[in-house]
């Protein structure tokens, strides 16, 4: 074996030289990722970073974009507005990135948009959110309420024959917004909302709400609480009261469902991405992640998977435009499509994307069984004033 060492050494030297000369010719394309490494989003951030690293590695292994390697610039947005402003300033002004692909909170996104407009940088926002955020330079590949609510209500009304719904939420923008949309959707489709109750955001005593649910006897319950404590206390108190009606939760994700265990058993949820999606693309995504990060893999989720897809959407757009010019790329982003772990993604619906939405039910072992997949659920017209 020893005799092969010099050979390897020469090969490595040659390769290094090659890369070095190529480096001069092909300057890397820089893609910025702003994510909440600290603060509220720090729970999901590791998975988002791993998704980004995997995407960049795969793109570079396949020859980069237009023959240029991709370089990742990851900065912390501290999960909030002030941090996001700093992070985007750093990415746009200092690092001079060619594009930004970021999973962020709504507050962080709103604070970042002015920086994006000034710097004229294509921006793909990869988190699901409450909808209707529009900017000339921004595209979104996560879901909006129009897409998340439909699968739950359709299943309840068509498969379970539900007519009378009870809605429960936390008293804040997401809770009120989601349920307002849910109510409108139910009424458009012939159902009736017979009760709608809210608790303050930090409220944890659902006593009166649960008694009302019991006395009005709805066919189904749909909730949009703040994540974490209110969501969990509602589920626990429903269970303690032994209410067994179909329960759709608009604020739960796969990971939370898993940790909640038997408290969440039977709960319905809707998502564009679940790890149990049975397609070759998803299986490859999961096994590639598993291989690259082996021991310290952060389980991919609804927030980290769109982040992975966004890199390939950007690559496709640059290749279509045959340039990294911001205006040309933004125009091309509307037309390109890829097949990712979630299925076909094309951000051609006024800057948002039609998505295959899955209706899942949480099983007693914490896993999520996909009951139904609705293909190409439309996000509606989110940004009528943008082309």
């Amino acid at each position, binding site marked *: 074996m020893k005799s092969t060492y010099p050979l390897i050494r020469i090969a490595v030297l040659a390769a290094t030289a090659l890369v070095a000369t190529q480096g001069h010719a092909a300057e890397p394309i820089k893609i910025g990722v702003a994510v909440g490494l600290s603060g509220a989003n720090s729970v999901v951030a590791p998975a988002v970073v791993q998704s980004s690293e995997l995407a960049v590695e795969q793109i570079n292994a396949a020859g980069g974009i237009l023959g240029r390697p991709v370089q990742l610039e990851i900065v912390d947005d501290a999960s909030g507005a002030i941090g996001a402003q700093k992070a985007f300033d750093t990415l746009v002004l200092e690092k001079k990135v060619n594009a930004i692909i970021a999973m962020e909170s709504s507050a962080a996104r709103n604070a970042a948009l002015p920086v994006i407009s000034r710097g004229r940088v294509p921006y793909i926002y990869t988190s699901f959110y409450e909808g209707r955020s529009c900017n000339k330079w921004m595209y979104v590949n996560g879901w909006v309420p129009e897409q998340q609510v439909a699968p739950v209500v359709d299943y309840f009304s068509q498969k379970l024959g539900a007519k009378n719904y009870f809605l429960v939420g936390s008293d804040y923008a997401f809770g009120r917004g989601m349920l307002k949309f849910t109510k409108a959707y139910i009424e458009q489709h012939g159902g009736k909302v017979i009760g709608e*109750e809210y608790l303050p955001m930090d409220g*944890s005593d659902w006593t009166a709400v649960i008694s009302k649910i019991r006395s009005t006897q709805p066919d189904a319950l749909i909730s949009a609480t703040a994540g*974490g*404590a209110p969501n969990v206390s509602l589920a*626990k108190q429903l269970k303690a009261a032994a209410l067994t009606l179909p329960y759709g939760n608009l604020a739960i994700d796969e990971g939370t469902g898993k940790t909640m265990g038997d408290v969440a058993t039977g709960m319905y949820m809707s998502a564009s991405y679940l790890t149990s999606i049975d397609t070759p693309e998803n299986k490859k995504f999961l096994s590639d992640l598993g291989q690259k990060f082996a021991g310290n893999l952060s389980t991919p989720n609804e927030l980290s998977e769109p982040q992975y897809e966004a890199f390939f959407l950007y690559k496709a757009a640059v290749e279509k435009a045959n340039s990294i010019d911001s205006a040309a790329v933004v125009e091309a982003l509307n037309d390109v499509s890829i097949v990712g772990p979630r299925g076909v993604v094309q951000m051609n619906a006024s800057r948002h994307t039609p998505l295959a939405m899955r209706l899942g039910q949480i099983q007693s072992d914490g896993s999520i069984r996909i009951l139904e997949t609705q293909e190409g659920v439309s996000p509606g017209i989110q940004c009528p004033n943008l082309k």
Partner: protein
Amino acid sequence: MVLILDITTTIAMLFIVTAGLMMIFGIMKIVNFAHGALLTMGGYAAFVVTQLGWSPWLAWPLALATGMIVGAIIEYLIVRPLYKRPLDAILATWGLGIVIGQLIILAFGRDVKFADVPLTGTWSLGGTDYSAYRLLLIPLALGLCALLTALLNGTRFGVKTRAVIMNEELASGLGIHAGRIRFITFSLGAGLGTLAGALISPLSSIDPGMGITWLVSAFMLVMVSGHSMPSLIATCAVFGACQVIVSTYASPVLGGLTIAVLAALTLRIRPKGFAHD
């Protein structure tokens, strides 16, 4: 019927959550802002019991013991020098609450935890199926109230405690070890706080902020009720009933304000609140 059960179980829960604060704030007059953190600790005691695979009933004694030990340490290190400086004690216990919260985050992380529930299912009562665990809280609250009343009014320790609170110098002059009385009362109050945390954990989420949501209501209730356990349970009964009625017939958002508003009104009209001396 459901309304009556809602009201009684809410009263029981409020009493359980405030009993520990009553010992420290009502009786010892120490404004203990760490009460929320003590409740949280009780929730985590339930979580630890689940992790160890023990019977969930053991969460109660474990929480009580942990709380008493932590309470004893707090009293000895932090509160003892501050009995004569109540304003400083407010800051100290507030800071302490933050420290305990952060230690819990360091040890267990920020995310929501889950503990096994000792009693699940429902009991049928007057034609309605009602959460068994909530019903269990009623005898628990009554028992706790009886025990604490007996301790404070019927034992030598209770007499000494009241003597120390009313006039420490005179009590010391009579040979009562004031320091020891305060030490025991504070530890007991802290223990009751963590016990309450374990007791409410099956109905609430176990996370680093779980106790904070109860803190304001607990202070309001103790402030109105003065310093005896029966008047505390009376206050809990009146305010708890109002909260459930407002939540049921108006809106739960208003229901969340009921206790704070009623307490402010009561203290405005009758500064002594429900206390009758």
